[in-house]
């Protein structure tokens, strides 16, 4: 028996439908971003000369005028082909370090994933432990709940100046921003999950005279696990959202920083590529998380 069963299983994978929609989207994107070929009609020789001098147009081999392909790249929103070319170059140089701030995409993904993982895991450990204590002790929970309620809605980025000032290290500040984003949902749901654990389970544990440690890892943790995992899932999302702007603001190398540096270079294709990388990293982390979640869920 595996954990959760998800509705009815469809035997057909909607792969081709997905592909169809992707095709429509790419085509529409392409149509929306191509500029019409240069039309010299109605322009005087002098005007054409100024345009050529400015580098807007070039003379092709057959002696006619066309838009300058180099300038085309920085004009308007790039089309899918430009982005694909950019992605191809970046992926080919994925493991190349060109300079202090110019690391290959594989390194950037690695930095973000490790930054995210450290912050998220530390936050989860703290939140689960504190959550269990609060879930077991109703009085303590009610005493601390007002503080949790005030701290919870604060955007993790709002902490950043204070964290940067106190820890004086941008790398750890970014980790702590992830921590602040991830800690509250898990804390609140763990306390709830432990508190609403069926009392018969604890009664059985009491009759069997389980030590507090055995009670914790044989009964309380597995019993509250599905609720805790739900909290972790919410934390996971908010931490993933926080890591990108944290990197942008702190100038820490990572996929979030990639998006910002490409914007500074006015390389819009690079920005779009960075956005796609952020999405891909999110999917990878999320599927890893779901595997983990499947191990601890149970049916009543």
């Amino acid at each position: 028996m595996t954990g959760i069963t998800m509705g009815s299983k469809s035997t057909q994978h909607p792969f081709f439908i997905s592909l169809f929609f992707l095709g429509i989207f790419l085509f529409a994107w392409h149509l929306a971003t191509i500029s019409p070929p240069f039309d010299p009609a109605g322009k005087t020789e002098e005007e054409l000369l100024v345009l050529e001098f400015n580098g807007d147009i070039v003379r092709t081999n057959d002696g006619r005028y066309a838009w300058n392909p180099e300038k085309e790249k920085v004009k308007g929103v790039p089309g899918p082909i430009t982005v694909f070319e950019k992605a191809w170059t970046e992926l080919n140089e994925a493991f190349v370090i060109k300079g202090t701030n110019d690391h290959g995409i594989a390194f950037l993904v690695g930095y973000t994933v490790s930054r995210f993982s450290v912050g998220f895991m530390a936050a989860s450990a703290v939140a689960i432990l504190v959550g269990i204590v609060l879930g077991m002790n109703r009085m303590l929970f009610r005493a601390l709940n007002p503080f949790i309620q005030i701290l919870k809605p604060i955007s993790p980025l709002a902490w950043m100046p204070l964290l940067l000032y106190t820890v004086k290290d941008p790398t750890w500040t970014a980790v702590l921003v992830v921590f602040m984003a991830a800690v509250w949902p898990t804390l609140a749901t763990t306390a709830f999950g432990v508190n609403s654990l069926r009392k018969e389970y604890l009664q059985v544990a009491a009759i069997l005279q389980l030590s507090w440690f055995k009670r914790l890892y044989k009964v309380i943790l597995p019993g509250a696990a599905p609720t805790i995992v739900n909290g972790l899932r919410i934390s996971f999302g908010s931490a993933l959202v926080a890591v990108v702007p944290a990197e942008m603001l702190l100038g820490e190398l990572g996929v979030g920083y990639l998006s910002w540096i490409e914007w500074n270079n006015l390389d819009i294709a690079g920005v779009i590529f960075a956005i796609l990388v952020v999405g891909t990293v999110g999917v990878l982390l999320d599927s890893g998380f779901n595997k983990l979640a499947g191990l601890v869920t149970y049916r009543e």
Partner: protein
Amino acid sequence: MSFLSIDHLSKYFPSHSGNGTVCIFEDVTVKINKGEFVTVIGHSGCGKSTLLNIIAGLETPTEGGAILNGQEVTGPGLDRMVVFQSFALMPWMTVFENVALAVRSAYPTWSSQKIKAHVQKYITLVSLQGAETKKPAALSGGMKQRVGLARAFSIEPKVLLLDEPFAQIDALTRGVIQEELVQMWNATRNTVFMVTHDVDEAILLSDRIMLMTNGPSARIAEIVDVTIPRPRSRETIIEDEHYYKIRNHIIHFLVRHASHGQADESGDHTERSGPVEIHFRTQQTKPVEAALCGRP
């Protein structure tokens, strides 16, 4: 000195209005011998489950106490295992793990082979062999409670506390499991304290049946001696001359007298200090009627 005695036990809960208390039951005194099967029967809300929980040590009495083997009950312990109405199996553990958790706790010095053999023995006893690796969610209600029984019997407790153990099981399966419980009890002769509102179940299983009046301020009004010889089975028990007399007496009590606290119309027991004891004796020795006697 009796094996398990419940001594002038009273339980009060704070009332909903906030001021004052509500008496659940008061001044309950019962003496249970070693190896005896005693059942408390009464309407919902009469506090019978609270009484069981106090013996289990899961709830504390307001007055009085429970004394097991000369020692007052102060908290839950391995010598008093509960079989819960809701089964209370850990849903994240397999059948084997559920029983093994109990066995490991009761016998911490045992080797893993010995624990495994012991668990297997009790799983076989409730005929669940083959289902060891299943999770409770994959079992029917009857099978779940078989696991509950295996877990309870496996730690060989001094007292087995059955809290409406078959209330959530369909009627047909219930009969089968009741019979299995009879067999297991015959083999072990544990001291059992059961709470139920199923009259037939009580008669089939019990040596004595305590009839509890309705709450609040419930008390044990009568103790019926089940004078039907063992071994009993559902098939043969109904042919016993006393079966319907006992059954009718209890149902009569539950339907008409539970709220007043008295089933017998004949005697005047207003001055009585404890429950009335009822014996249905055999035809040869005495006329067939309820022989009433006060508390010794």
